[in-house]
């Protein structure tokens, strides 16, 4: 696999893309001989199926300036910078325990423990957790936050009971 970069319609090789973080925390992509760098944002094409592959680097207008097919194709420093950025980009609240799951008027109330601490959130009654390929469950609350519930076998009995209706 190799990373390609679009430059005036032409595809160029990965070794011409380097990433670094400026002092003001802006992520810069240096393309070819350019040493100034272009401020970029990172978008994952396959956020769940291939979280560390197919990373799209986009400029401030949203145009793709490079597609990183695999992190291993980048030089060590660029890779470290991108990995750090991805940590933030893919941040999702990981639910490790369900303390309570209740139905309220038109809403379902979740009281959970996440890796970031305890959390209370609400989902619409017809929004059900979606089972992911790794066995975890993904649900989005009414505010737009994503919660990834760990697979059934990693949950305690009480949590499993709460999740049972959504388990398969």
């Amino acid at each position, binding site marked *: 696999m190799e990373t390609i970069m679009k430059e005036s319609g032409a595809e160029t090789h990965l070794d011409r893309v380097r990433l670094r973080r400026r002092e003001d925390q802006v992520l810069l992509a240096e393309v070819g001989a350019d040493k100034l760098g272009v401020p970029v944002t990172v978008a994952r094409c396959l956020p769940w199926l291939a979280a560390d592959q197919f990373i799209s680097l986009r400029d401030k207008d949203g145009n793709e300036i490079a597609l990183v097919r695999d992190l291993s194709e980048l030089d060590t420093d660029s890779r470290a910078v991108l990995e750090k950025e991805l940590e933030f980009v893919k941040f999702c609240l990981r639910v490790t325990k369900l303390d309570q799951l209740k139905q309220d008027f038109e809403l379902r109330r979740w*009281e959970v423990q996440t890796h*970031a601490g305890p959390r209370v959130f*609400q989902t619409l009654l*017809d929004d059900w957790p979606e089972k992911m390929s790794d066995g975890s469950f993904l649900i989005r609350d009414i*505010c*737009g936050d994503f919660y990834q519930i760990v697979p059934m076998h990693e949950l305690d009995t009480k949590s499993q009971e709460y999740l049972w209706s959504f388990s398969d």
Partner: protein
Amino acid sequence: MNEKNTGQIELNRAVIQRYLGQPGSLPEQIVEQVVTRWNGDRPVLYAYIDLNDELTFNEGWLVLGPREVLFVSSDRVEDWKYVSRQDLKQIREVNGLSCTTLVFLGSSGKEPLLQVHYTKRQQRAVENIRFVLDQELEGYSTSPEDADWVYGESVSRGVKDAQASVAGNQLAVIWRLLKYFKPYKRDVSLGFAAALALTLISLVPPFLTGYVVDQILKPVESGGMDAEKMIQLAFAIVGGLGLLHVLRELCAWVRLKKLAFLGENVAYDLRNQLYSHLQAMSLRFFSKKQTGSIISRVSSDTDRLWDFVAFGVVEMTLSVVMLIGLASVLIALDWQLGLVMTLPVPIFLWAYYLHGKAINKRFLKAWRKWSSLTAVLSDTIPGMKVVKAFNQEEREIGRFGRANQSTLETFHDVHRIWTSFWPLLMFSFHLITLIVWAMALPRVMGVWGASLTTGTFVSFLMYMGMFLHPLEVIGQITRMMNRAVSSAHRVFEVIDTEPHAEEQKNRQKMKDIRGEVTFENVSFSYDGVRDNLKSVSFEIKSGEMIGLVGPSGAGKTTITNLVAGFYAATSGRVCVDGIDLAEAELGSYRRQIGMVLQEPFLFHGSILENIRYGNQVAGYDEVLEAAIAANAHDFICRLPLGYETVVGERGHTLSGGERQRVSIARAILHNPRVLILDEATSNVDTETERKIQSALDRLIDGRTVIAIAHRLSTLERADRLLVVKEGKLVEEGTHAELLALENGVYRKLHEMQTELHHAFAV
């Protein structure tokens, strides 16, 4: 701060604490400290910052003051970070999946002055702060509303949009619903009295049976009663029973009639109140709620409430009365046997409750599976052409089969639960009756314990049979109440929503306007955060035709919405003939404006009724003249029923071009002083466009016209063009003047369209 705002702040605070488990407002100790530091000035805005640098939960606050921004975090209580607003040069937002970072930058290339992380839940509140600072950087000043109110509205909005009246109390809702009984007090009293009498009468036959056994049959068998007395008693009892049955059915009739009518009347009142209230609501309300949700409140929710009012309330009350009555009678007949029967009642109720919980859990799963099954259907049936084109029939059969199998298994599970529960419940109940038999028979036979007459025993057995029904009803009370309260919540939510300012009364009437439209520094935001219009100013003279041009999402339709008075400007003034629309009585104003939209909306009814919609007293000749002017007359005459043709819901029986011409005829008959044309000739073929365009040419004569058109060529007749981009008015002038502007937005748009036209022509 007015009373309404105070009430809303309190409600928002309660919603945030109850539903989101975070503070409902900025802690008082922070307020006190910043007020001291800022010489008495209170926070302008604030937001809760729920993540720290390690991206774990944490209580932090971002507070915007008149001259500074403060960040305080619970994991660094000593470190209150103040940043001067003057030092800020740029604010940058970085978005993650469930986390956003806001970076406050000073000089270019230097380390950030401040950086905060928060979940999407806090996004609106933080964006408000960012908006004010961004505006300041661009040289605009803003005056946000009360900080507590803005924070509460921003954070609670997700919950409030998703749910009906929040933070409500079940009993309060039921009590409010019962108040709708007030106009029907007589019917309610009669219905309840009849239902109560019916319940009490049901308790009499078992007692009479026992009496017959002990006082007639036994003496007859033992020869202790003479024939004449026996016949007299028998007739009296049969007569009494007959009278009882007549009374019983009479009560049943009164109950059904009064309460069914009552339920229907209450639902009727609610529907009327709801619909009248809906008409008073602004478009802002309708843009927030889904059409289906509003319709179901007027239809199925009020219907569900009818059911609850007519039968639910009574059934529940009577079941409790019946159960208490039965328990009392049984204990009075024989306290030992009575206790054997009544003591297990709480256990039975508990079993019903647990069963309900277990079955609901399975129903939820079954409902999910059912939805997946129907999703396959709604995917494939409309897309059958694609399925066949890609030869995927086998795959789709497999997909449906798997979903069907999974649904079947879940429903089997549901059936397994209830088919096990009911026999088990009946067995337990019969076990108790068996205990009663075992305890009673030796006493009836006189071999053990205090004696028990055969008649009392028979009565007892009959009463026992009546125990199950009220238990069942009481077991379902929670579900019934929840459903009804939920519906009541949804209905009351609409009734309680106050019409927006633009719909309120006591404003200046506008008669015979000339049609001069002025925008004075108008800004507008649909969501209260992002500005869709930014300080837009222009003047339109009476009788002038203005073309609004710009890319999608530039703010063209927003301008026409403000001219029509559908929304009020967030700041600045929208004036017609010098009168601020914020002060004008919009009903009188709207009678003088007309609109022709891209998707013309016709109501179910005849073409005649649709053309007359804005002017119902217009004569037939006027209607025909309007239709002729709109190029609609010819196609209408070709329809078998002419102007009396019913167009069906939303006018679906007519083609797009025909609907548009009927809507133009409607606008012509309405004879507006200000006319808004919003993409009136889009989505139609060239020939139809030509017909519509010539109809429009006749319509616009002598009126103030504001036209939006995707095809710039349709705006050739315009006196002036206003070019809008990203919410700002960027260019203004005639077609020729704008084309002369090098690097002008209009010129670019025009060039793009010309190129496209040539490309298609080639």
